[in-house]
């Protein structure tokens, strides 16, 4: 069984994580669409630190002798998931950034051409 102090510490950490995420959304520093995975991470950790039986069951299932390790593994998996998600987001952003720069270059060129054609 998980030591009580581990459960309490994990629970407190999860609550703090959730509050920080919610405040970041409220103050518009984090968009809802990028917050959902973080929220899911916080909720899963919170549930498993409160529902100790489920954590033990989960640890048994995958053959982890010490249940808090299962919590650690799961949290790491979620962080991996968030990272992977952000990698796709960054890829999309860099694609869009390239398109923006190209369109801007064309636009500036057209503008300069028009300006030089106009009689001064």
């Amino acid at each position, binding site marked *: 069984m998980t030591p009580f102090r581990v459960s309490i510490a994990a629970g407190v950490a999860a609550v703090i994580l959730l509050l920080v995420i919610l405040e970041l959304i409220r103050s518009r520093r984090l968009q809802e*669409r990028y917050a959902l995975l973080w929220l899911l991470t916080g909720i899963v950790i919170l549930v498993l630190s409160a529902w100790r039986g489920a954590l033990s069951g989960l640890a048994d299932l995958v053959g982890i002798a010490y249940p808090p390790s299962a919590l650690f593994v799961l949290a790491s998996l979620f962080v991996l998931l968030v990272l992977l998600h952000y990698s796709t987001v960054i890829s999309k952003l860099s694609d869009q950034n390239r*398109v923006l720069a190209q369109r801007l270059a064309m636009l500036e060129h057209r503008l300069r051409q028009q300006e030089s054609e106009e009689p001064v």
Partner: protein
Amino acid sequence: MAEAVQQVVTRGEPALARCRRIAIVPAFNEERTIVRVIDEIRAVDPGFEIVVVDDGSSDRTALVAERAGVHVLRLPFNLGIGGAVQTGYQYARDNGFELAVQVDGDGQHDPREIAALVEPIMAGTADMVVGTRFATGGGYRGTHLRRVGIHVFAGLVSLMVRQRVTDTTSGFRAVNRKGIRLFAAEYPSDYPEVEATVVLSRHGLQMVEVPVVMRIRETGSSSITALRSVYYMVKVLLALFIGLFRRYSTELEEP
């Protein structure tokens, strides 16, 4: 039919004829329907300027719309319906329009209903008018899940804006100058309609619904597929919840 409606629009409302008005038409790969939508808007009221916001289409939507002689804003890539519509509102704000009507480029919104949308705004009884599809019965089909979602949001939003709202997902809307200024500055990015209704109310603006008949969309598909429904529900619920704790500060009066 269209001419009859036009007479209702302009003859009954001399104020409307003087009002600078614009139809914002968001379009994503709608080359097959966009011209008809444009023609229908013109048939209803030629006084409407039309701006098509091409949301990064890969087909000839922008070209076809330009040939039809309307303003076309081409987004360099797909922003999603929220970003596209907001671009239209920014155009309306920056060019001094006093009335804006949002009409989807896929043909599901019947421009002949514009007169009904505009009427409460001209009467000064509303800042935003939403064309809703439930009061009329016919004309709308959707997946079961989507219907449930729509009703859940309708109930929630009704509570939040302290007013009965039946259809929060309709994108067939008209707003006055204040609404234009608000949406130009503040418009949610994806699945925007539900949040936009609440944001409007939080700024002290008045919304009314009018029943309209919507047509079955001819091309394209709803931006909400079954697989995305869960994301849609969670995202909008989260945004509504967070919105309760937000302070808004968009200036609605002219500077």
